[in-house]
């Protein structure tokens, strides 16, 4: 992959005059090895699917995607970003699952005056004072999804809440988000080591002692199933309701189904999207993904799919002048593309303004466990940091 990309790059440099681009090179940083790679795989599949659905063309340009593996590690993420920007000289950088990886890598792209699109991570640092004209986010700001969950908790009459989340950039934002809207008391809060801690025996004993009305967690990737398994083993399943964000998704649900953990059916979470969100682009994406890979896509994939169509819409406006960063930026800011979430618009800080729904874990017509949209919780929501952004 790396070698062919290098060869292609040098061949192109020899053949074409530098001013006229014939292809667009997109650097896509995600997690392709380690325990976080299930997410990276969902994103990579969705990027490939987007490429097929656009016939490998953006406007008149051929598309070349060069993947970078962050190995679930901020330092490695920064290194691979440097390689993409400096050695491969990509036209645009996208991807990034983890907030801490994105925060470590963002300057590399922005200092080189290239466009950076986050396909998942939405740390507050880049939404508020640190917003940047060259930085776009195609997912959400970290606080928003738990803010919607806080509203759901209020509606359910939860008074005493116990909060457990990983101790890194996104975990802190998630906790801040739920605290922003939740009106009851937070009776306990544990921030656990990330990504190393996979055993929550001590925290679950504390939950038992505190006996709250609900437990709020944020555990993406492999951590979610492990946490919920231990929640069950500790005898808390069915005793104290578990409310989660970014924990139960199309990646983890098949695993719960394999393990026959019927208890997760009916679980409510909040999200901007679900596979059954009804619009033309999403219906096609979900149907194609299921046909090609046999499972439901997760929201990570949906965001990656959107990222590719956003870039395509900008390239179509620019023709071959993709090296004009000002024009490129303006074209992306229009967000004139078909999104899997229906209407899509950027706010002043170039994070999306969008709806957040409650969604429920259900079994589909064929018995596969998936998530389904229930109610609109936050309508056209803009993140709370946008006001601090000077743009």
């Amino acid at each position: 992959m790396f070698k062919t990309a290098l060869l292609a790059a040098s061949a192109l440099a020899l053949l074409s005059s530098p001013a006229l681009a014939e292809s667009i090179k997109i650097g896509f940083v995600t997690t392709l090895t380690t325990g976080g790679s299930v997410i990276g795989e969902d994103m990579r599949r969705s990027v490939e699917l987007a490429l097929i659905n656009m016939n490998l063309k953006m406007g008149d340009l051929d598309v070349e995607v060069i993947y970078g593996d962050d190995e679930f590690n901020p330092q490695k993420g920064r290194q691979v970003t440097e390689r993409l920007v400096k050695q491969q000289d990509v036209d645009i950088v996208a991807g990034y699952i983890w907030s801490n990886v994105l925060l470590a890598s963002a300057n590399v792209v922005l200092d080189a005056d290239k466009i950076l699109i986050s396909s998942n991570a939405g740390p507050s640092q880049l939404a508020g004072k640190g917003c940047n004209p060259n930085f776009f986010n195609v997912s959400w700001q970290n606080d928003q999804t738990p803010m919607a969950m806080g509203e759901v908790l209020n509606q359910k009459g939860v008074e005493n809440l116990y909060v457990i989340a990983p101790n890194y950039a996104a975990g802190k934002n998630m906790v801040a988000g739920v605290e922003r809207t939740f009106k009851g008391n937070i009776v306990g809060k544990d921030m656990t080591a990330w990504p190393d801690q996979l055993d929550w025996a001590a925290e679950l004993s504390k939950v038992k002692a505190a006996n709250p009305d609900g437990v709020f967690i944020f555990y993406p990737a492999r951590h979610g199933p492990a946490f919920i398994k231990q929640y069950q083993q500790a005898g808390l399943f069915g005793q104290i309701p578990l409310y989660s964000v970014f924990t139960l998704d199309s990646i983890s649900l098949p695993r719960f189904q394999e393990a026959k953990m019927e208890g997760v059916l009916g679980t409510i979470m909040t999200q901007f999207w679900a596979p059954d969100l009804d619009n033309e682009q999403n219906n096609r994406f979900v149907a194609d993904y299921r046909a090609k890979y046999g499972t439901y896509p997760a929201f990570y994939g949906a965001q990656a799919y959107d990222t590719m169509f956003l870039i395509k819409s900008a390239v179509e406006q620019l023709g071959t002048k993709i090296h004009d960063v000002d024009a490129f930026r303006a074209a992306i800011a229009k967000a004139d593309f078909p999104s899997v979430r229906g209407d899509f618009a950027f706010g002043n800080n170039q994070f999306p303004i969008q709806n957040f729904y409650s969604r429920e874990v259900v079994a589909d017509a064929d018995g596969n466990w998936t998530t389904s949209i229930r109610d609109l919780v936050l309508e056209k929501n803009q993140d709370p940091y946008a006001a601090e952004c000077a743009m």
Partner: protein
Amino acid sequence: MNYVLLAEQFLNGIQLGLLLFLLSAGLTLVFGIMDLVNLAHGSLYMIGAFFAATFTALTGSFLIGVLLALPATLVVGIVVEIVVLRTLYARNHLDHVLATFGLILFFNELVRVVWGPAGMSIPLPAALDVSVSLLFGITYPIYRIVIILVSLAVAVGLYFLISRTRIGMLIRAGASNRTMAGALGVNIPRLFTLIFGLGAALAGLAGMMIAPVTQASIGMGEQILIFAFVVIVIGGIGSIRGALVGALLIGIIDTMGRSFLDVLLLVVISPAAAETAGPALSSMMIYILMALVLAIRPQGLFPPRGRQ
């Protein structure tokens, strides 16, 4: 109410400690007797977990899964020793670190190729998947009690193996003075293969025992390996007894730190500061303990005889 929590956290600490013991027993023998720094010990922990997950899925029984996975991990350990490590004994520690770090990458990629990136979960029989009421209002997950009992049984078995059998005598002789043991006619290469295989099986067992709790996943061995190195430094390199005491100390201190440190800090600093300092400080505590042990008793708490 509070003493119930305290008792539960104590059990949690013991459970973590005993699991660490399974992992560090092999590490301390390999490091102490073979003088080999084996960073890939955690990979055997991971391989054990994946073997158990596969065999459990095939046979439908966790017990049979573990019984099949144990010899399988032993074989992997022996193959690794014969193919890779045997050539390294004469070299220095830096070469050991480089080669075994390479093994970590190799095993992680191998697992990704064979089992996929998603990892595997091990379903437990329904009877083991719940909590049980103990005395004084304490409820505790049954499976964690099983981990405690199995680990204790292994600890007792190891004690007998090392202090009462001929093999144990050879291991002790090797730990005290390898050159002398070799000069007295002990077949050192065969002893090394045996020790490495034993260590691999113990690490694999630890992985198998924890997999139903945390799931089998790529890279699961690396973080816990750091804990295991702290354990053997505290306990004294080459000493099984030291590994047991060190592991229990680390398990209890780490669990208690995670449970009560933020509350204790509230007495001295503001809630906001305690909230950020709590997790940071509790994850440092075991390293502070290690630094203390190194400063006061650099050879560890229970170094093997002949090495004091």
